């Protein structure tokens, strides 16, 4: 499988910020768990600079996701879009021809397919960038705070002492790109679990270890 052209991602990374730990090489996949979790060896970079496009104080102290999620999400979108657009068009075709009896020529449906496919490709290419730009997270000694959402924006703050347990999970695509999903669970009702998707695999483990350490401190108070 060939990589997508890297320019846009590089540009984003350069233009906006230093990114929390930039695992250059793919991390080795843990085949057997170690007896004790590795100490938090990955030091976090100092607070990221705010990207020029946003109000500077809004993003102070926040990290972005791992930029490798952009090519990954693009690939996932590109692989999915021919099938998804085929599904959309065939539903339209079924409704239009069998039910509403439009009687369109097949060329119309071919054009429709190309249009839908094109739109999906465009979204597959753009959406990951938008999502990347609108997603931030921070884990200070107080809370894990996650900002996300492009149109409907959210900041979710989970105080560290409210975290019951955590998951680090990784799907096959994420494994290829060295990414992971970090999930914290609380005793809440609507937010009984809060996801932080597409951070570097090391970052997820760093977060897990860090949260456990912070918890020790908090509980000892």
């Amino acid at each position, binding site marked *: 499988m060939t990589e997508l052209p890297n320019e846009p991602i590089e540009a984003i990374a350069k233009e906006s910020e230093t990114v929390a730990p930039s695992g250059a090489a793919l991390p080795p*996949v*843990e085949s*057997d*768990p170690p*007896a*004790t*979790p590795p100490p938090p060896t990955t030091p976090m970079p100092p607070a990221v600079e705010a990207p020029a496009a946003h109000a500077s104080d809004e993003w102070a102290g926040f990290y972005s996701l791992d930029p490798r999620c952009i090519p990954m999400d693009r690939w996932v979108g590109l692989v999915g879009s021919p099938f998804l657009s085929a599904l959309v068009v065939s539903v339209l075709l079924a409704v239009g021809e069998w039910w509403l009896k439009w009687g369109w020529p097949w060329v119309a449906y071919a054009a429709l397919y190309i249009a839908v496919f094109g739109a999906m490709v465009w979204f597959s290419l753009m959406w990951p960038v938008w999502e990347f730009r609108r997603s931030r997270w921070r884990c200070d000694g*107080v*809370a894990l*705070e996650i900002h996300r959402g492009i*149109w*409907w*924006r*959210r*900041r*979710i*703050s*989970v*105080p*560290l*002492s*409210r975290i*019951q*347990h*955590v*998951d*680090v*999970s*990784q*799907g*096959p695509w994420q*494994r290829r790109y060295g990414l992971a999903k970090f999930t914290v*669970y*609380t*005793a*809440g*009702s*609507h*937010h*009984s*679990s*809060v996801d932080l998707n597409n951070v570097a695999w090391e970052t997820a483990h760093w977060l*897990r270890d860090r949260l*456990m350490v912070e*918890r*020790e401190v*908090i*509980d000892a*108070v």
Partner: protein
Amino acid sequence: MPSESSAASEQTSEEPLGAPERPLSGPQWLHPLSPIFDLLSHVRSLIVPILLAAFGAARDEIVWQLIAAAFLVMGLFFQLIHYFTFRFWLTESDLVSRQGLVFHKTRTIPLNKIQNIDVVQNVLHRMFGVAEGRIETASGTEVEAVLRVLSVAKLERLREAVAQRNASRQRPARAAPAAMLESVASPGETIAPGRENESSTGWSIPQPVELLRISPAQLSAAGLANNRGLVLVGVVIGGLYQFDVLRQPWIKFIWDFLPTHDHSMAASLRFLVGLAALVVLLRVLSVAWYVTRFYDYRLVLDGDDLRVSCGLITRVNTTIPRRRVQFVSIQQNWLMRYFHQVAIRVETAGGAAVSEENAHSTLLRKWFIPVLPNSDVARIVNVLRPGTEFDVASFDWQPVSARTRARLMRLAVVYSMVGLGVLAFLCWQWGTWWPMAGVAMIAPYLLWLADKKSRSLSLARTDWGVVYRSGVWLRKTSLTFFDRIQVVTWQESPFDRRWQMAGIAIDTAGSGPADHSIDVHYLDASVARREFEAIQSATAARRLQWA
């Protein structure tokens, strides 16, 4: 069916076990029989192959049995994958499990958050000397980790190791309800706030105190103010359909009241009288519902437990541990306002205990105090949470944005226009125009409601928690405490952005019975930001007071 024997994890092990350095610290496998038990536990998913096999047997077609076999093999295949990829181990502070072949998942459960390790052992388990371990923390509804299955010896070692590690940290699992119940009598460790009040007398167990008793007169007033009669009407209508009474001759008598075929003045008058009679009847039914349901209502504080008992026909008794109260909602509809009454609902932390509670006690969270004089609210809140000054007038109420009225009114206009458009189309189809008059009346009401709603919303942050009130016809004032807040969310929709507004939502455990949540919209963007940060830091500064 499995016979469950549950045991709390924090058995006080008498002798400091000079156990091996770190038992279970290396990766642990499940018992080799696990795939079989896994498969058995998913009996429900095996229904399809079983049915297919039965179908095939009945029709004597081998192909169905082959398909059934394929299902079974696939099921077994996934269970085998689970068995071969699942590992768990203990670290100094955590129980870690790891699973998955394609989708990996590593779960880390801090030992001191483990409330319970349930051991499930049915006859089949016993035959092979294995058991199923279920590890529970306070989170959510699902069990956090299921160890299906382990040898009994290993499960016992795990439980011992967890208990031992928790003990060696000099911190018995605070979260466990069982441990908490015992500590009520011991004044040394004050965990729930305000425990000092009761335990200051030393070791003497405090006498039960009757906090509230509701007289039938108050219940009748509540019945008049609330529309519970509709509940009974539903039952009656169901009965009518059941017995096909619509064909009975006396139905015609009621039918005559409807002014559909007779447009005379007398008929209309008769119809109005009939309608009034119906309303009165509904209210009488409502009174009956309240009186039978809550007859001789008593609220007693016994130690740290709130005991509620009520009911004329079915006597309901329930206990709500005070420290489990997460959320208090004070509700008042427009009629109750005339009677100077409110109703109070509470939400409690459930966790593992919830499933053991019966429907009655769940219902009594919703109807915790069905009716209460206005003047008693502060006293009751102070009992629910000692040290809480609940004085609505003294709060620093933060109203929503001044532009909310304009925004909601614009929304009302949009709704009215859309409704009008749809109705105009329908009228054009029907060829009659009188329904339009109805909408002409509804539109001003919507505008009035928008105005009222924009004024009804406000948020207050006190030194102990957050209070939020909303509602026009049914006013709800809800409060929660910083040490009960689990997650704080700031949210902004595209419309919010246009109006420079934002919202705040607060998540607590056990949400539901109060039918209200702190989910504030239409705040000024700057206010929302400020309050979000303030609530966030106030929450984080307090330890979780769990159960």
